[in-house]
């Protein structure tokens, strides 16, 4: 997971909120809450060129928190909010 280059699906709207962010996928109608502003920063940093590890560095996520972040990113992959750059173009 740490070496993967990911990006946001083009049909996903990301809206900052006080507690983090809301993500809405216009194709599959899923609505997902990102429950921490740092996760929003990570997702915004996943621009299709950075690896997950680099995005976590950008957001300054401490190593003790990284398993939770990796689980979150897996969940976002599962719901198609995130994907591989080639596939999401």
């Amino acid at each position, binding site marked *: 997971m740490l070496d993967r280059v990911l990006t946001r699906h083009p049909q996903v709207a990301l809206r900052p909120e006080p507690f983090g962010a809301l993500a809405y996928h216009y194709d599959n*109608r*899923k*609505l*997902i809450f990102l429950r921490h502003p740092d996760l929003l920063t990570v997702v915004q940093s996943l621009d299709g060129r950075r690896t997950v590890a680099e995005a976590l560095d950008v957001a300054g996520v*401490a190593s*003790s928190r990284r*398993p939770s*972040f990796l689980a*979150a990113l897996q*969940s976002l992959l599962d719901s198609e909010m995130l994907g591989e750059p080639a596939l999401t173009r």
Partner: protein
Amino acid sequence: MEEPTASTESSESIAAIAAIAATSDDEDELIEELLVEEISIDGMCGVY
């Protein structure tokens, strides 16, 4: 198009992953956070 259903299952699996990670022997004490929650927008009263 179908609405997503309230996804307690994915919340539980995320929590499970985080809990498993918390038992690793990393030096730093691991912090478990539930960072992603999916909800069914239809699970919201006030909508037609």
